[in-house]
């Protein structure tokens, strides 16, 4: 919403300047987004009269002028050709900055003749392209008149962000009312007195809605005006509309636009001679069309509110008028339409047809039903004033709906909700100035809501009105009372472990990413969504489905980073993945990957690509950080099919899957255009065993054996298909009491090992709790270990 300060002052008797008005508007909740003042650059520029013209003695093309100003006669050198005695123009003096050039004027001597100022052209003042000569002011404005006044510059333009519920502030009058209530001035009213008919010309109108649909247009007022001349509107009106960004068209059109912004009272004017028969308001039938004033032809849906004549639809109620019955320079007779249209239907129609008109913006927010008739009078008066003609009687179809709500207001609510006490006089005066009826008091009021305030319905609304007039600045801040002397833990164990996992992943060298919750539908299917969760209205085809896995988004990021020149790196994300189209069917997931070279080329060791065991270390560390008991976990080889089938696995606790990890399937990488190997993992944090609540915080006694440990190495020859895990398990089971640690230090194939077999070299650390192991005991344990491994895997000891 834009308005100008002079325009505002037609509704508000005030001496306040634009800054203090702007400050107050923002304090009232009418946020000022910007102030522009085309006249500000002309401060000090004033009207001066040429009293003498002489040729410059040294230059043919220059004149030496004597110029009369408010402070006496000055000498001015001027290059314009239109100088003459008696011409009044705008003079800039030394110290002034010429708007078009940014040059600061100084007292100068031009080829020996002193010049104490500059007579300006329109272009030099930044007010147009005219540079034919200096401004030639008509109407002999008094010498010394400020340029802004003499040139009719509209004044500062204020742009407001009006919140959608304040329908009344889409008109200058509503804004003025708020300011008056806040003490910035006195509210003035337009002349709404009835205009006596000068003719009995009428245009018959009829509301023809299906039963139950009368709410589409409860009130439709028309007035027929004959004998108008529709030329350009006067300067003041053109200036005003231009200032707020509207293009002046003709007097009649400009008047409708003017009232739209002046009173938030959109109107329409039909050329009566283009209408065929009566005006009928009804629901549109599907498929009807209207060539609109917006230059587009609209195909209407059934139920939209339309105004028709015998030719069909001539206007789309509250949204846009029709081209076929619009006014032009030849218009002589008009029908003025001032109506009340249903906000919801107006909004729906505008939205479906994609029409964002100033009329729609106001009707859909709700206009003042009690302003229909006064608005008709004011519009009639303006038309007669600017276009001449004789107005017919006011014709009313429907009636003014009763909209003045009432509510009971307890004064105590102000202190209860706003934390302030406001004097009774201040409260009553403020509400009354806003148009509220205030009866009763002091503790209990009967409040009548003004017809233009559709947003007020509860006591809390009244509190807001009182508080914003009083000023939010005057509400004293109070810190919230503490719940306890020492603040308690607030994170749940699940929230805490998400944070732990994040920070550990970063500590292990992975960069935390935050990627979209969306992804291309095809990828969602490839990554496990049997039924992808599709969006109705995705912003892009690549963001059309909710992600069933975070990995595809991280892989897309790998691709982008490779394109940026990275040869290796790691990423992870902790966030939601989506399981089904239902609130709550989502899981907190942690996914991570490493791609390409594990480290940069360096002098210490050869470069190698990341491998499955790098990522396995990551996932086990993160699971441990998340509280999973990894010691007892198993690894199975049934990871989802976006992993390489032979280079991936799952971490399990019995039947429960904790995580998947491995190399990303080469076919998936190829599809995504990634040419480096990628190792990845993913796990749902929620499905890990819940962190268990413990009674105490004690860690239990340390059980460290004081007796020496011994280490024995074994090399087992096994079939290629035997998993190392099976060997390790057999070792642990063989001597549960003595085996402390088992580590694999070599897996060998090749010379000395027959094809199809491998040699797995294992170091086993043995230690007893209660004694030093004798050679005999160690030997027995070793034999048991070998026997157990042999039995479980068919292994033989390598000689």
């Amino acid at each position, binding site marked *: 919403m834009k308005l100008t300060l002079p325009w505002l002052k037609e509704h508000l008797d005030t001496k306040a300047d634009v800054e203090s008005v702007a400050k107050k508007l923002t*304090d*009232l*909740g009418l946020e000022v987004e910007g102030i522009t003042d085309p006249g500000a650059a002309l401060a000090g520029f004033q009207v001066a009269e040429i009293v003498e013209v002489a040729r410059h003695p040294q230059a043919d093309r220059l004149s030496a002028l004597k110029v009369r100003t408010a402070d006496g006669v000055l000498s001015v050198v001027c290059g314009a050709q239109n100088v003459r005695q008696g011409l009044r123009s705008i003079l800039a003096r030394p110290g002034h900055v010429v708007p078009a050039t940014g040059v600061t004027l100084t007292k100068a001597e031009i080829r020996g003749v002193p010049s104490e100022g500059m007579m300006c052209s329109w272009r030099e003042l930044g007010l147009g392209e005219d540079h034919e000569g200096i401004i030639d002011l008509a109407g002999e404005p008094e010498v010394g008149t400020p340029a802004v006044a003499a040139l009719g510059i509209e004044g500062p333009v204020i742009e407001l962000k009006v919140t*959608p519920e*304040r329908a009344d502030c889409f008109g200058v009058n509503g804004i003025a009312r708020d300011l008056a209530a806040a003490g910035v001035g006195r509210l003035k009213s337009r002349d709404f007195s009835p205009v006596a008919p000068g003719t009995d010309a009428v245009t018959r109108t009829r509301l023809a809605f299906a039963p139950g649909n009368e709410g589409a247009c409860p009130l439709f007022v028309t007035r027929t005006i004959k004998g108008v001349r529709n030329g350009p509107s006067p300067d003041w009106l053109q200036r005003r509309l231009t200032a707020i960004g509207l293009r002046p068209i003709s007097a009649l059109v400009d008047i409708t636009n003017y009232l739209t912004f002046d009173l938030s009272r959109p109107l329409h004017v039909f050329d009566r001679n283009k209408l065929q028969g009566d005006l009928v308001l009804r629901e549109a039938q599907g498929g009807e069309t209207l060539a609109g004033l917006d230059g587009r032809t609209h195909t209407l849906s059934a139920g939209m509110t339309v105004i028709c004549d015998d030719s069909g639809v001539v206007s789309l109620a509250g949204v846009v008028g029709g081209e076929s019955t619009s006014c032009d320079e030849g218009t002589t007779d008009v029908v003025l339409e001032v109506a009340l249209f249903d906000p919801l239907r107006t*909004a729906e129609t505008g939205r479906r047809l994609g029409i964002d008109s100033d009329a729609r913006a106001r009707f859909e927010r709700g206009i003042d039903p009690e302003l229909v008739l006064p608005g008709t009078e004011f519009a009639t008066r303006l038309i007669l004033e600017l276009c001449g003609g004789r107005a017919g009687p006011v014709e009313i179809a429907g009636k003014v709906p009763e909209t003045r709500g009432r509510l009971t207001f307890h004064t105590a609510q102000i202190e209860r*909700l*706003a934390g*302030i006490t406001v004097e009774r006089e201040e409260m009553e005066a403020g509400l009354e100035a806003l148009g509220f009826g205030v009866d009763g008091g002091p503790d209990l009021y009967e409040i009548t809501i003004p017809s233009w305030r559709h947003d007020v319905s*509860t006591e809390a*609304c009244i509190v*807001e009105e009182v*508080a914003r007039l009083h000023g*939010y*600045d005057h*509400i*004293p*801040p109070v*810190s*919230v009372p503490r*719940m306890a002397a020492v*603040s*308690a833990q*607030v*994170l*749940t164990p699940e*929230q805490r472990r998400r944070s732990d996992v*994040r*920070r550990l992943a*970063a*500590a292990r*060298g992975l*960069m*935390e*990413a*935050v990627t*979209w919750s969306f992804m291309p539908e095809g990828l969602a299917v490839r990554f496990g969504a049997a039924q992808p*969760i*599709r*969006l*109705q*209205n*995705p*912003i892009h085809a690549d963001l059309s489905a*909710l992600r069933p896995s975070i990995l595809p988004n*991280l892989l897309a*990021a790998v691709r982008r*980073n490779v394109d*940026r020149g990275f040869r290796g790196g*790691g*990423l*992870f994300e902790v966030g939601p993945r*989506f399981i089904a*189209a*239902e*609130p709550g*069917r*989502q899981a907190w997931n942690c996914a991570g990957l490493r791609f390409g070279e594990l*480290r940069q080329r*360096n002098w210490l060791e050869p470069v190698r690509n990341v491998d499955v065991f790098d990522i396995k270390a990551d996932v086990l560390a993160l699971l441990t950080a998340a509280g999973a008991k990894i010691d007892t976990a198993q690894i199975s080889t049934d990871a989802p099919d976006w992993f390489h089938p032979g280079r991936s696995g799952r971490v399990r606790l019995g039947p429960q899957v904790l995580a998947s990890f491995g190399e990303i399937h080469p076919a998936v990488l190829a599809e995504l255009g990634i040419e480096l190997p990628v190792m990845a993992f993913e796990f749902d944090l929620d499905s890990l065993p819940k962190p268990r609540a413990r009674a105490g915080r004690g860690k239990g006694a340390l059980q460290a054996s004081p007796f020496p440990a011994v280490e024995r190495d074994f090399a087992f020859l096994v079939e290629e298909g035997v998993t190392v895990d099976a060997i390790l398990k057999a070792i642990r089971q063989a001597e549960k009491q003595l085996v402390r640690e088992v580590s694999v230090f070599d897996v060998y194939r090749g010379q000395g090992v027959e094809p199809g077999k491998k040699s797995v070299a294992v170091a086993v650390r043995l230690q007893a709790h209660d004694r030093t192991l004798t050679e005999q005991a160690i030997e027995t344990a070793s034999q048991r270990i070998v026997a157990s491994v042999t039995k479980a895997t068919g292994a033989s000891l390598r000689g």
Partner: protein
Amino acid sequence: MTLDVGSLRDQALAAIDAAADLRALDEVRVSYLGKKGAVTGLLKQLGGMDPDSRKEAGRRINELKDRLEAALGERKAGLQAAALEARLQAERIDVTLPAREEQVGRIHPVSQVTDEIIAIFADMGFAVAEGPDVEDDFHNFEALNLPKEHPARQMHDTFYLEAEQNGAPLLLRTHTSPVQIRTMLAGKPPFRIIAPGRTYRVDSDMTHTPMFHQVEGLLIDRRTHMGHLKGCLIDFVRSYFESDRIPVRFRPSYFPFTEPSAEMDIGCKRSQGELVVGEGSDWLEILGCGMVHPKVLRAVNLDPDEWQGFAFGMGIDRVAMLKYGIPDLRTFFEADLRWLKHYGFMPLDVPTLAGGLSR
């Protein structure tokens, strides 16, 4: 019999001195003090002496032995020191060579700032609540006093799923406010929660992305009023921006789910394309807030005459951008390794009030 102890000593000492390394030294030791050594040989001669001579000779031989042992020890220490010195010289390496590379990841600014916000509100007694990203109409709109016709509900703002639930539309939450509703429906007042999370709007330009992050705040009890709302948020902003002097302003505004409603601005300065928060004469909006609307309280079965309080909603990405000078929202979600390294946080920088929110 005379013992030529003197010349043996001189001879031995000369040999010890001449030993070039530990092995040669040990040979010298053996040749004098070993089982067949010269000194040992002298001792063997004692048996044939008379008691007096034997006593005298024994004393001298033992003196000699002590002397030689001392010399041997001294020489050994010298040789050892020299050997160590030689080894150290031989083992010299160029320690200016680069260290073994270690990779340290980073925490994303959204996570870090969320942790900062949690740390501050936790101290004020707010728990962290969560809700689903996929929402229904009731929780995202209806219970929040957003009537069916509210512009925010139209297609141009809200992502809708193709799937429906019992014939009702499903959508991606447009704000974190539905967590208010779920929290109040699930529990009993009083409530003090914040709810950080992902939110979605059909929007994409320099300052808007289809997904962004919000944190919701809700405090419901029997006495909390707008003064508390202001106090709480001023306390928050000063703590978060780590400045006690940061100018703040509350302006009346409009949200369907609060009444009265306000927007909070903080003071800032814009110069040469840079935004400096906390000083200057410009204002920057950072959040919307207000007293929870009586209709919202009724929607969650609370009596608005008994229960009252405030709610607020703030953009996490936005306050992250402001605090850490990150210029473009879109870059948050691109997972550019260079960006993450530059704007991300070290894993051990866990924000706490005791240790400071940021470094």
